[in-house]
């Protein structure tokens, strides 16, 4: 039998595959001795929220309260919590729990633990379903709480908790964070624009690769990319062949890999962080002839997430956001499906999320 949840909570939930979100009352557990309870101020909208709300991947359990780019203020800490106090500015990302004992957990890679618990829409160790940050407050194990640097605006910091670590983690793991390296970023959305900012902070030369000219001015003049490459322009692509040490591919739609592999130098790495549902075509010869590799990556461990947020604090990196009210969420989701946002919606939870009457 599931645990009895004592504390009332309210938020927005999807109730079926239409993905439409509506007010939802539910309960959360009492603050356990290792838990941190916090009032949610802001929550970013990640493309994953949309996919989960509509059950695109086939494993959604309804009702689903999405949200895993959550920032807020601590209201209560359990007796054994040492790292946080009431009043601290904190956040929670994609994960709310893990087994704490496997190799991945020991290596600080909780994101790859086979028993990792998602912040939203997963079965927790106490058999209850996790509900995410489109809600008034969260309670979470201390080990999965991130401290937000004081100088970062909370609304712009929220998306870093997923988008930020998703690009930061593979850049570090695959050694693409060395000054002077040439990094390509494919797709200029939530993940892509943050990748540009982190890569510049790491001292990389950055080229944004996009299917149309439209975003050139934005990429180069506002986000600070060094160059912009239109993937549908054969001459531009040919001139850029064999010039990049790494490419961060954030595109979640099906797309060709061959031209991207061609842009890599020998030993270059194509990092896939978008997750197209259909398999992509992998031409093997260019990988072989240039000793190149295609790698995947998914968010990052907790230690890494904290490291990323601290780096963001040091370089004043936040996401470019459109702040919305809770009752705009469904419209935001429709716009997100058409990539019509520069570059992340963030819900102003504290000011606009209302309990069901």
């Amino acid at each position, binding site marked *: 039998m599931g645990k009895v949840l004592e504390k009332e909570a309210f938020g927005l939930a999807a109730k079926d595959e239409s993905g439409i979100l509506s007010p939802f009352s539910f309960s959360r557990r009492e603050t356990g001795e290792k838990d941190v309870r916090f009032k949610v101020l802001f929550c970013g909208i990640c493309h994953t929220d949309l996919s989960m709300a509509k059950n695109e991947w086939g494993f959604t359990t309804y009702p689903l309260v999405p949200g895993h780019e959550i920032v807020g203020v601590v209201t209560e800490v359990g007796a054994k919590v040492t790292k946080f106090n009431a009043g601290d500015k904190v956040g929670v990302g994609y994960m709310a729990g893990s087994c704490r004992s496997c*190799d991945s957990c020991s290596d600080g890679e909780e994101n790859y633990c086979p028993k990792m618990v998602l912040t939203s829409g997963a079965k927790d160790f106490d058999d209850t379903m996790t509900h995410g940050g489109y809600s008034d407050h969260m309670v979470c194990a201390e080990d999965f709480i991130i401290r937000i640097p004081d100088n970062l605006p909370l609304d712009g910091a929220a998306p870093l908790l997923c988008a930020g670590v998703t690009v930061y983690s*593979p850049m570090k793991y695959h050694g693409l964070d060395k000054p002077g390296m040439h990094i390509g970023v494919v797709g200029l959305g939530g993940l892509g624009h943050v990748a540009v900012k982190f890569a510049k902070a790491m001292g990389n030369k950055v080229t944004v690769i996009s299917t149309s000219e439209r975003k050139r001015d934005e990429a180069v003049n506002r986000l600070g990319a060094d160059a912009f490459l239109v993937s549908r322009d054969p001459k531009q692509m040919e001139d850029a062949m064999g010039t990049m040490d790494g490419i961060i591919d954030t595109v979640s739609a099906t797309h060709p890999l061959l031209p991207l592999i061609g842009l890599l130098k020998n030993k270059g790495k194509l990092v896939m962080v978008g*997750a197209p549902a259909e398999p992509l075509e992998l031409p*093997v010869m260019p*990988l072989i002839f240039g000793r190149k590799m295609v790698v995947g990556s998914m968010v990052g461990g907790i230690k890494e997430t904290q490291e990323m947020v601290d780096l963001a604090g040091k370089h004043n990196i936040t996401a470019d956001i459109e702040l919305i009210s809770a009752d705009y969420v469904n419209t935001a989701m429709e716009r997100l499906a058409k990539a019509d946002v520069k570059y992340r919606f963030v819900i102003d939870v504290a000011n606009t999320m209302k309990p069901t009457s």
Partner: protein
Amino acid sequence: MAKSPETEHPNKVFGWGARDKSGVLSPFHFSRRDNGENDVTVKILFCGVCHTDLHTIKNDWGYTYYPVVPGHEIVGIATKVGKNVTKFKEGDRVGVGVIAGSCQSCESCDQDLENYCPQMSFTYNAIASDGTKNYGGYSENIVVDQRFVLRFPENLPSDSGAPLLCAGITVYSPMKYYGMTEAGKHLGVAGLGGLGHVAVKIGKAFGLKVTVISSSSKKEEEAITHLGADSFLVTTDPQKMKAAIGTMDYIIDTISAVHALYPLLGLLKVNGKLIALGLPEKPLELPMFPLVLGRKMVGGSDVGGLKETQEMLDFCAKHNITADIELIKMDEINSAMERLAKSDVRYRFVIDVANSLSPP
């Protein structure tokens, strides 16, 4: 007027070549250059038959320059050395592998990675720096710059050692580069042919646990009792595949036909690495979820540089690793190619060139 293969160079040579994409090999007269001051002339004793030879003679990849004399797993005796040659003397037993030339001055060449030099020329079916075509080891002799000649270790037999010059380095190089040599880790070898069987032997020599992954159980006993694999996994057995999910640190994928990556990726642990060495004619399907959810990697690798090839030969000599071969005569090459196309060989044909190649 263009010179013919026979008159292009001063020294007449006899070999077997293919003239069109039927891929049929037959006696072929051509010529080779004089032995230059940096060159070594090698009288060829044995030459391994690599699947690439088959792909090339049939123009499967669309860039064969006919007529073509294949062969890049060459072992022979140095009969002449140029005056600048320091590493070899007449009478030495030597090898020539996949690469016969490179620019010798770029970053890759400086790092002993001639295989990634943009001007690298293959031992056969490539244009050399003097604009003439390279002809390979299905012939009496070959003339090669000393940089591209390998010393053949004493205890390696010439016939069963020959395939190491391509198959051996093709698996050894990525195992070193991608860090797949940690003793005790678990290596899967997909496909048990020329590359695969050598990968099993080299994997065991590095102290790895080795599982052969194959579509049929036909080769199971052979793999375990003769090649030394620790276990054998049949991909068409769903229960065994399920039990093996997430158990392998590395996979060397030698399968040259188009095949499914999804089940292989599932066998890898988190952070696992799959190295694709086979050269299918069409792209493979790469499912993204397993890659992303497990931070897994698919990488490629292309033979190895000369320094590394020498290191590999010395490593194999130390561990008594040779290929399992079927020795054939030159005039049996066409039926050997037909059998190779059906993977009907355990595990490499090697042509007994010196004893069977005779001009008509």
